[in-house]
């Protein structure tokens, strides 16, 4: 089960330059791929292209190919694609249906459209609410949630669809540290236990440090670095691409730069306190 981008290039209708430029990427079952990069690097475009929404829904021109298990996504029917691949937009409030009176109904909207039997719908809604620790929001009006709550509800709604591939555009941007940790734990479980393939765009490198198996650095539409999480996030070159290294890396290099402590001592201490 693999989602594959080969030399994927994307230019929005009317734009003067490519938002994505010859991107090669592989997302396979049970793995979490982190994506980092400066503003306007093409991270959100990557999400739209990987999920097949661009160019089908978002106008533009796609070069190269995007395939799921060898099949071109542009040849798949929208409903077929939607069942394989779920996407969480950066602005999650925009994602809520606007038709549901309660959070519970909002989460049931997707599974019901899949034609699932009612007991299954209920089971999926309840387990998604529990996974993100928001069971208490079930009876709330989705249009009257705080930014962070709306983000968790939008994510739970995607989880209830149980897609094979999950594309998340800054899923914790509006969450407090506890919410961020909860989402991290839920995603890790999803990858391990349900073998979901997860692509997650994040500025919070501390979260990716704990969550991702591999990390891709995107800059000006191109993949400039790709590798195991510890290697990529520990690379001092990250700063040149406008990406903040995780706290453990920053604190360690601050101490080293000031000539304080032996490297091994500092490493041990920082590693211990950072977990």
């Amino acid at each position: 089960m693999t989602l594959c981008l080969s030399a994927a290039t994307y230019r929005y209708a009317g734009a003067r330059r490519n938002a994505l430029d010859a991107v090669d990427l592989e997302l396979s079952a049970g793995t979490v791929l982190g994506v980092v990069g400066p503003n306007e690097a093409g991270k959100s475009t990557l999400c739209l292209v990987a999920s097949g929404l661009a160019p089908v829904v978002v106008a533009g021109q796609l070069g190269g190919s995007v395939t799921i298990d060898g099949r071109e996504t542009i040849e798949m029917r929208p409903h077929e694609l939607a069942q394989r691949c779920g996407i969480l937009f950066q602005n999650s409030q925009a994602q809520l249906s606007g038709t549901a009176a309660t959070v519970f109904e909002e989460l049931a909207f997707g599974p019901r459209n899949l034609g699932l039997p009612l007991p299954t719908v209920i089971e999926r809604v309840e387990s998604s609410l529990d996974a993100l620790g928001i069971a208490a929001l079930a009876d709330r009006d989705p249009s009257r949630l705080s930014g962070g709550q709306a983000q968790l509800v939008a994510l739970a709604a995607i989880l209830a669809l149980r897609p094979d591939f999950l594309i998340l555009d800054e899923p914790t941007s509006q969450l407090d540290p506890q919410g961020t940790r909860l989402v991290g734990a839920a995603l890790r479980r999803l990858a391990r236990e349900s073998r979901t393939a997860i692509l997650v765009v994040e500025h919070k490198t501390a979260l990716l440090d704990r969550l991702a198996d591999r990390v891709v650095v995107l800059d000006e539409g191109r993949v400039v670095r790709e590798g195991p999480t510890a290697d990529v996030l520990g690379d001092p070159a990250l700063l040149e691409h406008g990406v903040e290294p995780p706290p453990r890396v920053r604190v360690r290099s601050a101490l080293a730069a000031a000539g304080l402590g032996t490297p091994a001592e500092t490493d041990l201490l920082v590693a211990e306190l950072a977990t």
Partner: protein
Amino acid sequence: MIAVDVRGVAYTYPSGVRALDGVDLAIGPGETLAIIGQNGSGKSTLVRHLNGLLRPTEGTVRIDGRDIAGERVARLAATVGLAFQDPDRQIFAGKVRTEVAFGPRNLGLRGAELDRRVAEALEIVGLADAADENPYDLGYSRRKLLSIASVLAMRTPIVVLDEPTTGQDLRGVARVRAIVAALASERRTVIAISHDMRFVAETFRRVVVMRAGRIVLDGTPAEVFAAGNWPVLAETYLEPPLAARVGARLGVGSTPTEASLVEALAARGT
């Protein structure tokens, strides 16, 4: 003179949720203050009281010494600028330039003076090259900066930023930090809500921690993130920055930023 004086403010939403439960907060001109706390602790509800978007169920809000209970939002807009958490709830114009001009135009500015205000605000947030673009052609992070520019263009003595670093990269965060410092140097008051502890510790001189509609900690970053307060922070599900944890372990006092950690260790002569 006190810029913002919140006394015994409580607020209950029509749904029955008591979002603020007796808040006292006095903020001086030129002060920079960050409000932190978990989602739903009342941070956004509190700042919406400062420009009259919400009116307290109990207590009073004074801005520059005036009780604002009877004041209209349009009038308060000249004193308190608020950049929303979600820029898309704020942006409505078809052009970046028009969006930023809306506020100062409503204050009565026209012609060259208006153009200057707009150009200046766009320059500060780094969007000068995007003046003629449609806001919705900009990525989220730049829309967020646009919403901040719209507030800066009003030149209000009090500026409130609701999660200004959401979606910003390293350079974007540095830019927001510079904006806060520039506003403070003009003796303008800056109040920001944030979940980004590093940004908070490095940018603001005062930090307020909220929990369940109340203020539970109030002090400098070094005071608030000091080891003695960690249990209180834990109750609100907040963690001190890593630099503070390393500093406490090494016994060099409260070091909420990496710079202060290095300084403290250097002073100890390790």
